[in-house]
C-alpha cells in the first residue's frame, strides 16, 4: 500500500537505525573484517585472505560440529512438530479450559534459557534431581555428564520440553481459525478422523506449520545456552555444537580469525537451508492455475 510521501518519517527511523547499527551492523562488519585477517584483537592486523575459510572448511572439528547440529535439528524437528500438532489437536477450542491450557502451554516458553539449562541440570542429577534419582532407583544407569547417549537424550528431552509449546500454540491458532462448516461437511461426508486431519486440518494449518518449522529449525540449529549450561559441550566434545565450538575458539582460544570465519560459514549455512526449506515448503501442493494433476 502506498502511503503519501513525507520526509518527516525518516526522523522516526533514526533512533532505531542507530541502535541496529551499534548492536548488529557494526559487530557483523567487524566479524567479516576479522575473518579475513590475523589478529589477536590488539589492533594489529595481518591480511590472511581466505586462509581462515580454507582452514575451517578443511577441519574435522568443524564438520563434526556441523554434523552434530544437523542430526540434532533433525531429531528435534521430527519429535516436536508431530508432537506439537498432536497436542494442539487435543486442546479445547471453546469453554473454560481454553485459557488454562493456553497458559500451561506458554509457561515453558517464558523461562529464560539458561534457567532451563539449570533446571534440567539439577533435574538429571542422581543425588538431588527427580529424574536422576528416579532412574537410579529403578536401576537404570544415567549420567549425562559422562555418558554420550544420556547427554544427548537429556538435551533433546530438554529442548522438547522447552519448545514444543511454540509449535502447539502456532498450530492451535491455525486450527482455531478453521470454520466449523468444514467439520460439519466432513461429518456429512462420513469422513474418518484421519481424513479430517489429512484433508482439512493439515492443509489449513500449512501456513503456520511452515513458520513453526522454520523457527524450530533455526533455533535448534543455533542452539547454545541450554547444552552449554547442561553439559558444557561434554562429555568430551559429544555435545559440542557449532555455536559452542565457535565460542571456545573465539573466547577460549582467542583465535579470532578462524572463529570469525567459522561464524560466517555458520550463518551462510543457516541462511541457505532456511531459504531452501521455505521455498520448497511454500510451493508444496500449490498449483499454478493451468497445472494438471496426473490421476
Amino acid at each position, binding site marked *: *500500500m*502506498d502511503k*503519501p*510521501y*513525507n520526509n518527516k518519517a525518516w526522523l522516526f527511523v533514526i533512533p532505531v537505525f542507530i541502535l541496529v547499527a551499534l548492536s548488529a551492523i557494526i559487530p557483523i562488519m567487524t566479524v567479516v573484517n576479522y575473518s579475513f585477517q590475523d589478529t589477536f584483537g590488539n589492533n594489529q592486523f595481518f591480511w590472511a585472505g581466505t586462509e581462515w575459510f580454507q582452514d575451517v572448511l578443511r577441519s574435522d572439528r568443524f564438520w563434526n560440529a556441523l554434523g552434530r547440529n544437523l542430526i540434532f535439528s533433525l531429531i528435534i524437528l521430527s519429535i516436536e512438530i508431530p508432537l506439537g500438532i498432536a497436542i494442539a489437536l487435543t486442546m479445547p477450542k471453546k469453554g473454560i479450559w481454553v485459557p488454562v491450557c493456553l497458559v500451561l502451554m506458554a509457561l515453558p516458553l517464558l523461562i529464560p534459557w539458561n534457567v532451563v539449562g539449570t533446571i534440567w541440570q539439577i533435574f538429571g542429577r542422581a543425588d538431588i534431581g527427580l529424574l536422576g534419582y528416579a532412574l537410579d532407583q529403578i536401576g537404570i544407569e544415567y549420567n549425562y555428564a559422562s555418558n554420550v547417549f544420556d547427554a544427548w537424550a537429556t538435551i533433546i528431552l530438554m529442548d522438547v520440553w522447552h519448545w514444543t509449546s511454540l509449535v502447539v500454540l502456532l498450530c492451535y491458532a491455525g486450527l482455531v481459525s478453521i470454520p466449523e462448516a468444514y467439520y460439519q461437511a466432513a461429518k456429512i461426508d462420513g469422513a474418518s478422523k484421519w481424513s479430517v486431519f489429512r484433508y482439512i486440518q493439515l492443509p489449513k494449518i500449512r501456513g503456520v506449520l511452515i513458520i513453526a518449522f522454520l523457527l524450530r529449525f533455526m533455533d535448534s540449529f543455533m542452539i547454545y545456552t541450554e547444552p552449554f549450561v547442561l553439559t558444557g559441550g561434554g562429555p568430551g566434545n559429544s555435545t559440542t555444537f557449532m555455536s559452542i565450538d565457535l565460542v571456545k575458539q573465539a573466547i577460549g582460544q582467542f583465535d579470532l580469525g578462524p572463529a570469525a570465519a567459522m561464524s560466517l560459514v555458520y550463518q551462510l549455512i543457516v541462511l541457505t537451508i532456511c531459504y531452501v526449506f521455505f521455498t520448497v515448503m511454500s510451493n508444496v501442493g500449490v498449483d499454478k492455475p493451468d497445472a494438471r494433476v496426473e490421476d
Partner: protein
Amino acid sequence: MLELRSVSKKVGRDWHIKDVSMTLEKGSVNILLGPTLSGKTSLMRLMAGLDRPTSGEILMNGTDVVGMPVQKRNVAMVYQQFINYPAMTVYENIASPMRVAGVDKATIERRVREAADLMKLTPYLERTPLNLSGGQQQRTALARALVKDAELVLLDEPLANLDYKLREELRVELPKIFAETGAIFVYATTEPQEALLLGGKTATLNEGLVTQFDDTIDVYNRPSDLLTAQTFSDPPMNVLPVRKSGAEFVFNTSRFDVPASLSGLRDEEYTIGARPHHMSLQPPTGKSMKLDCKVSTTEITGSESFIHLQSEGIHMVALMHGVHRVGIGDSLPAYLDADNLFVFDRNGSLVFAPGSNGHG
C-alpha cells in the same frame, strides 16, 4: 469537484485500473458498477488518496490528493463489513469524527441527533454495536460518515451484507440523505438494480477499465458497447450473433426480417441484444423476431415467470409478467420485440439502441 486524469494502477504485474479519466461534480451521486474484482475498490481507494496511482493524477478542487496529509483529506468511507468502534456506544461512534476534529460539545450533540434521526437510530443511541442488528450497525457506520461533513463520501458495497428487504429500505433512504449533504458521493455496487434506483451517474467497470460514464439511465438505455450492456443487465441480456444479408438477419439456420429501423445497417456481422423482458412467448403488439426455441427451465416468482430457452446452442431468458407454466423440453416459438433491440458490431461497439424507452 474530483478529477481523475488518465489514472492507472499497477499491482505486481497486473493492471488493476487502466487509464481512467472522469470528473465528479460537487453534490453528485456517482455509481461504480461492475462485477467483483473489476476495480471498484481499487478506484475508490485511489480517490480517497489511500493508494497512489502508478500514473495519472487525482485532483480534488485542483489540489493533488496524493500529496495531502491525512488530516487535510476530507473523505469519509463506508465499507461492506459494518465497521464501528466496538467498545463505544452508537452515540459515541457517530460523534467520534467530530471529537477528533475538535468540534464543540453543543454542535456534536445537535449533529449526532440529526444524523441518528435521519438513520432511524435514535432509540439505539446508548447501545454498543454488538447489540445491534446488521442493518442498524451499517446505519451507524453511515451516520458516522455523514456527520464528518466530508467533501467526498465513498461507499463500498455498503448494503451487500444486509438482508434483501433491508437493502430495499435503505436504498430508498440513501438518495434522500445524499441530497441533503451536498458532498460528492461515490457508491460501488455489483447490482444493476441498485444503480438504477440510486440514479445519478454511473461508471461501468470491467477489469479495471471504465467502459462508460454517464447519467445512469443513459448508460442503461444507450450502453456504449456490449460489455457495458451486459454489466448493466440483471438478468443478463440475451445476445444473438447474426449476419445481416440484405433484408434478413441470419442466425445459424433461422432467418428474420430486418426491422425497418435497422434497415440502414451495412451487411455485416452483428450481435443483437434483447433484454429478457423484451422476449416473450406471446407475440408482442408491434413487430417481432420469431425464434424457434426449446424450453430448458422455468422459474416462477408468483408475479413473474423466467422462462429459460435454448435456440441453436444459445441460452436465452424470457421474462414475462404473470404466471406461465410451460413444459420442460417443449418446442415453442419465442418473440423478440423488434422495437427494443440493441445492435452491436463485430467489435462490440453500439451501433443502434432502441429509442422508445426512457428519455432519449
